[in-house]
């Protein structure tokens, strides 16, 4: 009972902190607080440490693969140089002036 109340209180405080960080414009702080809230839920409500050891293995496995997905899945988007077709995507690509296109794409 006390444990649950404590966790609830922590989550409410963290929520307040999150909102404050947003108001102050600290994007990173928001992310940190969100991760903390997740931890409180996993440890406090879901009680992962009281469950069978397999639960921890599975949770860590899921986290690991999630990291792979996010890291390698975004690698391409963050390292790609895109040369957009001028004239706006909405107009449909028209054949542009030569000068409008950079020399190399890739």
């Amino acid at each position, binding site marked *: 009972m006390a444990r649950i109340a404590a966790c609830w209180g922590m989550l409410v405080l963290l929520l307040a902190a999150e909102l404050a960080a947003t108001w102050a414009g600290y994007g990173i702080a928001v992310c940190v607080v969100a991760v903390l809230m997740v931890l409180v839920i996993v440890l406090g409500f879901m009680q992962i440490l009281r469950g069978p050891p*397999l639960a921890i293995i599975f949770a860590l*496995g*899921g986290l690991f693969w999630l990291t792979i997905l996010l890291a*390698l899945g975004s*690698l*391409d*988007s963050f390292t790609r140089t895109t040369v957009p077709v001028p004239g706006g995507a909405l107009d449909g690509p028209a054949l542009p002036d030569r000068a409008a296109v950079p020399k190399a794409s890739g």
Partner: protein
Amino acid sequence: MSESYLWQDGTLRSWLLTRDHKRIALLYLGSITAFFALGSVGAALIRLQLLEPTGTILSDATYNRMFTMHGVVMVWLFLVPSIPVTLGNFLVPLMLGARDLAFPRLNLLSWYLFVASGLLVLYGLFRGGLETGWTFYTPLSSDYSEGRVLPVVLGIFLNGFSSIATGVNFIVSIHQLRAPGMTWYRLPLMLWALYATSVIFVLATPVLGITLLLLAFERLFRVGVFDPTLGGDPLLFQQMFWFYSHPAVYIMILPGMGVVSEIVSTFCRKPVFGYRFVAWSSVSIAAIGFIVWGHHMFVAGESLYSAIVFSMFSFFVSVPSAIKVFNWLGTMHGGSIRLDAPMLYAMGFIGLFTVGGLTGLFLASLAADVHLTQTYFVVAHFHYIMVGGMVSAYFGGLHYWWPKITGRMYPEIWGRLAAALIFFGFNLTFFPQFILGFEGMPRRYATYPAQFQILNVLSSAGAGILAVAYVMPLVYFGWSLFRGARAPDNPWGATGLEWRTSSPPPTENFAETPVVTTDAYDYGDMDARSGVADAGGGGPHHV
């Protein structure tokens, strides 16, 4: 010992509501056989169309629907549930020495999900048709296709949950339900392979689910998630699609490797050479298999960095596969080899899988991939893995465990003949396609330049042989159900726990929980105990 699982309660109701993993395996067997037949009809029509450069049999539109149907049905309704789900369902508890899987009701639910997804997919494919290919690339599938994208996509989404349920079931079972004495390093290699497969089921399938959901969302509302004209990025779809679909290749091949390990060991009467390497190579294939997907996109416009990283990983993933091949050869060395039908299939697998794996190196090599990708070279490559590899292993496994499943022996002569015919027909079908691909013939072409005709005719001829060869097991398996010799409990003289119960097993699998005291494949010990001569004896009950 009580009655066999097959006849304990023969009512239809008892089959449809069964929680017995063995009966669920048979339900799967029936459904995937039907889907395999359907996918094969698609393949046959494709090969008939390609007999002539102008393709007079089907219109372009029908041809496009046909290869889409072939791909979708074969991938999601046959290959993914073939060995892992069908044979896996039958074998996991038996090999563990357990009474059932960890969650029997979930297991039945997964079969119903599978059937529902199959019907939804078929509805889409046959009422209106679909012509996007099984890869659903956007924006073709989201905005331009006139086919039934939604039902098919939702069907596959549902299918994913069936896979996830099975994966969860297998993983928890292997962790929790091992018989006393069955340590991790005493597990049959089939279970290591199925464990690795299940990891992919559980962790890759949801990403396919969300990708297809995004696609459906995009198609329904044209919101622009993957539509470049609205600011989206079609390559992101490809990244997410291949995050599942590349590991899915390992869903299709890993269990095949497990089957081959079992068969090779049994028919050489020797422990698998380098057991721990083979076991861990399964796990590392599953793990590394998750970080190579970008090699499907080397010419798609992904960044140079991304391409280089994925190319390097792709080379790495072939190392554990090579380990397996050499270990199987090592197992044969010094064994006492019998060439029964399962062994013939297993050897076919080793050869064809090696060809598939080596041609995979061509496609992992960046500059070579640029020339070869999206041509028939790729088609040949993945058919060598999936048909030459997986289907051979599936048939090998079916022959090997048929006596256990049904309590009847199949006719050995016919089994060997079919195995040889499949090997020959397969190579005739797909080897010419490597050359076609090098020559530049693009895949998914309803018509093609006349210069490619000779090789295409060869390929189609091979497909004809392959079709006959695939019908043969269907016939003699059916025959054996009624006329086959009664199978002894352990017809091959194998070591696994599944051979320690009757054929077919009783509903509760084992009269009493078996206790494991030796390593897997301990043939030296077994032969010494049963008094079989070390060399030249063959198996105890060779039928």
